[in-house]
């Protein structure tokens, strides 16, 4: 029995559609696998912080490896994966945040300036957490109080940043009427309309 058509992807939207349903490819598989793998490794590391050392350290090494690959992909990857596509200066980021407060921020197909900044900060934070965590296993830094303190503080900061990130994504979903979580799974987003930044 033939399966029903799975999707209308690529078909032109009906002329009377209020909003176009045509989608475009945005996040490549590496970006998506990186994102959800990093989510998993951070969650596992956080939950095992007082538990299995093997699990905690393993999650930390995985996170470090993921960030390293993502940084390389940020220079070599597909257009929307590249840092040059989404990393903006602090002034642009601040202007975008002010626009959010005023309810007049543009929809971006890639990361918006605030989202791009968050991605960078999260990657830097993850790298710093992994680095200080690794230091704690070395003869040179083992048991050194400030390394333990910094590791814990950055990890807690990461938790706060994750909350902000999820909040920002939720806000963007509501404002632009789109499911960004689904976009990070399928890689596809609604095509740019007038006023959007492609």
């Amino acid at each position, binding site marked *: 029995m033939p399966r029903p058509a799975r999707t209308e992807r690529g078909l032109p939207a009906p002329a009377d559609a209020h909003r176009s349903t045509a989608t475009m490819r945005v996040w490549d598989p590496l970006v998506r696998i990186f994102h959800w793998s990093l989510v998993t490794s951070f969650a596992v590391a956080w939950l095992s912080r007082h538990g299995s050392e093997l699990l905690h350290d393993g999650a930390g090494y995985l996170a470090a490896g993921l960030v390293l690959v993502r940084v390389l992909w940020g220079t070599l990857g597909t257009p929307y994966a590249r840092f040059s596509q989404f990393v903006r200066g602090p002034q642009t980021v601040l202007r975008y945040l002010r626009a959010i407060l005023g309810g007049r921020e543009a929809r971006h197909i890639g990361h918006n300036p605030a989202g791009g900044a968050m991605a960078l900060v999260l990657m830097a934070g993850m790298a710093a957490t992994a680095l200080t965590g690794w230091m704690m296993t070395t*003869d040179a830094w*083992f048991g050194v109080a400030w390394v*333990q303190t910094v590791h814990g503080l950055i990890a807690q900061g990461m938790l706060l940043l994750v909350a902000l990130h999820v909040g920002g994504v939720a806000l963007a979903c509501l404002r632009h009427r789109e499911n960004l979580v689904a976009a990070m799974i399928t890689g596809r987003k609604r095509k740019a309309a007038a006023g959007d930044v492609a």
Partner: protein
Amino acid sequence: MYRAFVITALALLISGPAMADASCSKAPSSKFQPKTTLEEKLKAEGLTVRQIKLEGGCYEVYAVDKDKKKVNTAYNAETLEKVANAEAGED
């Protein structure tokens, strides 16, 4: 032969608990020995102590030996007996 077996078994039964690894203290913290006592003991063993943390009824020690290799151990805070698992106090 049979007698020897029974005697050996009994001897093991009696000595068994004494040979078992120490565990963390369940006594109130007023019974605990001071960290400095443990630190002195470890220094005498040739360790350089970086940190001693009280975790439950155990002191977890972060130290390096003479070859600058890390040493992670735990001691019963009341008796200062070594505990097999360095993370014993966290459970």
